């Protein structure tokens, strides 16, 4: 468990953040300028905070009180910088190999071929960064960090410059790192679906302070604290793969309720997380019939929280867990949704977006 507690003042900006990052992916979430990169830099040792303590178990990276300041090169990090920072004088191949030169020879190491393949940079290996496109640079930067056999990965918006398809290819790799290699990951992202999919823990920042932290499901299920407002609210459910159907659908078992998804890679019996965005849920009092939507979760209204606009968030308890629905207040009135009311949540199969399906991780709460 990584514990971070730092205070630092820039002119016009004060950082005062403390959080705990349990094993898995801890996502730093917050508006531009809220201090995400600054925190990552203190963990990397590139910025010496005015005061603070950063430690992982008994491995202490920084403790200003006792004067411990581990040099960056002793921290064994894989830092994916927000701005690439590839070495312009080295080829892509040499950039990728750079970290491995310095890693202990017996460190567990990702296969270069595998990472190169995953990132689709095989045809670029002999080029220099100056001749790469923006997204290509970013992919090489990811590869360089992953291949350095790090004990801790710091990823500052690693996928921002990539197209959706490429993101969809790379995200599962971070999941595997989280689940199989169990490298702790500090991850900065603006994308709710990335957060939902990867995060074990979410730390929400605002103006240099932590405004919320906790397990992903909890923080994401609370529309009040998420920076971008209600649009990003959604529930994260844990489910088990029940069956792969012949027509390309996978049936999940979420607390006894069936959920249909486009085929997922997990084997039958495997556990995974599914994010259901609040705005993708339609509610119906009666059990709906004859719809193209396959997933219908019966539940009981737990709470109706009016939003700032014409909308409201309805939280309902189903056997699969707490599900959020964002509907108009008009509909809430028409349907008579009050706590205790029985409703059906209708979720389109495909609106459980591929990006929002992740391996089970450690969020089995």
């Amino acid at each position, binding site marked *: 468990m990584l514990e971070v507690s730092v205070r630092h003042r820039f002119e016009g900006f004060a950082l005062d953040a403390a959080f705990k990052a349990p094993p898995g992916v801890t996502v730093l979430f917050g508006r531009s300028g809220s201090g995400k990169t600054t925190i990552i830099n203190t963990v*990397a*040792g*590139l910025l010496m905070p005015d005061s603070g303590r950063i430690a992982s178990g008994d491995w202490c990276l920084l403790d200003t009180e006792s004067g411990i300041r581990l*040099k*960056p*090169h002793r*921290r*064994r*990090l*894989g*830092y994916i*910088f927000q*701005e690439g*920072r590839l*070495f*312009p*004088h080295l080829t892509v191949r040499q950039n990728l190999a*750079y*970290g491995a*030169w*310095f*890693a202990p020879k017996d460190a567990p190491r990702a296969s270069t071929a595998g990472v190169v393949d995953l990132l689709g940079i095989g045809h670029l290996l002999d080029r*220099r*960064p*100056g*001749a790469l496109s923006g997204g290509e640079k970013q992919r090489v930067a990811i590869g*360089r*960090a992953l291949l*350095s056999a790090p004990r801790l990965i*710091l990823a500052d918006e690693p996928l921002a410059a990539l197209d959706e398809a490429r993101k969809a290819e790379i995200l599962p790799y971070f999941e595997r790192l989280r689940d199989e290699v169990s490298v702790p990951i500090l991850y900065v992202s603006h994308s709710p679906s990335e957060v939902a999919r990867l995060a074990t823990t979410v730390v929400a920042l605002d103006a240099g302070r932590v405004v919320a932290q906790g397990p992903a499901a909890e923080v994401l299920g609370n529309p009040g604290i998420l920076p971008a407002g209600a649009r990003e609210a959604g529930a994260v459910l844990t489910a088990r793969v029940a069956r792969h159907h012949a027509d390309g659908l996978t049936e999940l078992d979420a607390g006894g309720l069936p959920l249909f998804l486009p085929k997922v890679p997990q084997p039958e019996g495997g556990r995974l997380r599914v994010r259901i965005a609040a705005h993708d849920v339609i509610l119906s009092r009666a059990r709906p019939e004859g719809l193209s939507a396959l997933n219908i979760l019966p539940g009981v209204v737990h709470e109706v929280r009016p939003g700032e606009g014409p909308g409201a968030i309805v939280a309902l308890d189903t056997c699969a867990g707490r599900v959020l629905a964002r509907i108009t207040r008009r509909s809430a009135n028409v349907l008579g949704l009050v706590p205790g009311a029985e409703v059906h949540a209708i979720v389109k199969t495909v609106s459980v977006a591929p990006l929002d399906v992740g391996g089970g991780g450690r969020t089995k709460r």
Partner: protein
Amino acid sequence: MTDWLGPAEWSAVALSLQVSFWATLVSLPLGIFVAYALARWSFPGKQVLNGLVHLPLILPPVVTGYLLLLTLGTRGPIGSVLADWGIVFAFRWTGAAVAAAVMAFPLMVRAIRLSIEAVDPKLEQASATLGASPVWVFLTVTLPMALPGIVAGAILAFAKAMGEFGATITFVSNIPGETRTIPSAIYAFLQVPGGEASAMKLVIVSVVVAMGALLLSELIGRRVTARVGGR
């Protein structure tokens, strides 16, 4: 061509090349080190070091040569210690190389320092996060990225060494075959009425040699720049 210059002149040319080459080569590591220290560290006495490096530029060469004679001569405080170890500079071509190196040092350090200062510290940081210790950061990032400046500094030093006269003759005199470099020979020719023609031949030789070195450095510089890819 061999007839055009006498054997004495050829010996001066060969000696100048030898002296300049070794002066440059041996002072390069120290030059890089000092340039790095001036560019990236802050330590007490930094400005003193900086001043010391520039001293040979400011002083008339004769004074520099005289100071070298007083310190590195066989009876000088440093020279006598070195002499006990069998290292003697006085009246040797090695002394000429020392004089040339000292005179060229400020030029070398300035060029290298500017290049090191131009290396983006963010890349050095990236290297550190990937596990490179400061020495490795320097060797794998700073040094190769500063290469154009290092080449420029070395060539500047070489050119300066080829032309160095005042300090050399004051420190190690003008001994044919040992310390009579091209500039010393040219000077000797110019001291007598009618010596201009012989002097001019040597001037041409030294210009040709130095231009060759310059061209080479331009080529190296251009290749390095091209490698970094449009930056």
